[in-house]
């Protein structure tokens, strides 16, 4: 489990960004990446892999490994570590490969 340092908590005071993660309301710091917000909220994993269906979580945090793929506002395959939280963002765990959408 990850937590926030007091400096991070302080930066949230008064202007936290409200999002939902798998339906649960979560408060984040403005400027947090989705992956950082997931870890800070206690989610070590964020998806199941397409090949073997096993759990994966953020790994490199710099846009290289593509392990932090999540569904954001209905869009699957979004890189959690490269996208910043926005008010009202809906973040969901991704199951397997994305489906082709019309």
């Amino acid at each position, binding site marked *: *489990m*990850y*937590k*926030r*340092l007091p*400096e*991070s908590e*302080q*930066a949230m005071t008064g202007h936290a960004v409200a999002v939902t993660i798998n339906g649960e309301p979560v408060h984040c*710091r403005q*400027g*947090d*990446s989705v992956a*950082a*917000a997931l*870890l*800070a909220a206690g989610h*070590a*994993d*964020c998806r199941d*892999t397409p*090949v*073997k269906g*096993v*759990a*994966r*979580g*953020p*790994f*490199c*945090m*710099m*846009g*290289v*490994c*593509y*392990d932090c*793929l999540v569904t954001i506002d209905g869009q699957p*395959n979004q890189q959690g*570590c*490269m996208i*910043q939280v926005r008010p009202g963002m809906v973040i969901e765990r991704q199951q397997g490969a994305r489906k082709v959408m019309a």
Partner: protein
Amino acid sequence: MIAIHTCELLVVGAGPAGLAAATLAAGLGVDTMLLDEQPSPGGQIYRAITSSPLRANKKILGEDYWSGESLIGPFQASGAKYEPGATVWAISRMTAPELAGGFEVGYSVGGEARMLHAKHVLLATGAQERPFPIPGWTLPGVITAGAAQILLKTAGVVPGDRTVLAGSGPLLYLVAWQYLNAGIKVDALLDTTPAGRLGKALPHVWGFLRSAYLAKGLKLLRAVKANIKVIQHVSAIEALGQDKLEAVRYTANGQQHTLQADQLMLHQGVIPNINLSQAVGVTLRWNDLLMCWEPQVDDWGNTNIDQIGIAGDGAGIAGAWAAEHRGRIAALEAARQLGKIDQARRDSMARPHIDAYARAVRGREFFDTMYQAPDPFRLPTGDTVVCRCEEVTAGQIRETVKLGCPGPNQMKSFLRCGMGPCQGRFCSVTVTELIADERGVSPEEVGHYRLRFPTKPLTLGELASLPQTDASRQAVVRLKKPV
């Protein structure tokens, strides 16, 4: 039609090399554009330096981190254009006659594709973590030490329970030290540096003794060793758990031990981030000391592709200080090629940066020899995952070589390794080394993945949002032939 942006010099990457290069080039009157993937400048080493919540307590990250601020002000005042959150996915030479050379660059911002025309391109794409293929390294709860540091720098997010750091090299100890400064408990640091490395590194000690890293490094090492349980000569590590990390099993001095753990942070050095260089056709060579592919560049950062230069760790690992100076040297060469300065001016302006670069790399051989990633952690066997995206194991790769598959590109057709979203970034060096190991030849002889654009995944919707030029339309529309 949407206007396509143009510039004389495109710099890719806003780390120390890219920032220093763009600043200097713009100051010489070069119309400069800097594209960077991250939301704020600094690269990974100075990541979030303008936005970190730890600004309120500068001692956590330490003065070396905050020294990166010296690059930001001059860059912002330089007149260089800057687009954050921009991922470059293609660079190709323009062939239409009216465009007179230069490059067409495809990139995306916020899921929308854009085009840019540039006469000269400087790639300053930096470094990434070397893969650390051990059993269980794909489990949630296992991250790279670099990732741990990014969480700390960008968000002030830190581990709250049982934490183990493992591997070797300065960055691992730096993370441990920064956690100490922040009052975060680290349960153990498993050091994989093999016994006898100091002896091997000693011939290079003279350079190290004159290195600026020495005093800083020793102070940091002492603090970490006084406060964290450091286990030396760790020769095997496994991450254990069902759906997430539960424990770390390791072997040290022939004895196996198990530690309960919620977080495992891995690091065994960094390697150049070369996907763009590779896809654009830059010649790579295998570095036998650093055990990775490196683009071939001359002293000015020039590559085998005209008007494409590389600076910083993306041209070979040498650290942040060296990167800054290599960025300036390459910027001067770009300005010369663009006709802004002549050769004499380039040479005189470059002299202090060439000297500073030489000082910055002093002692690197000592480090590189001391902390070379050990064989057992680079050459996995059995069920250990090598390609994280396509979930291909070391055993599968070794078996496929025995069946007669000679190289990484053929391996793709057998196993799909390297063909997932990361495009080989986290398996390329391992696959090459495993094939070399099985065949009993050098990695250089085995070769590397052939990469093609787009170097990062791109949706059809993104592509369709691109502005079209007459040239691009004509390239795809078949002209009706008269009967």
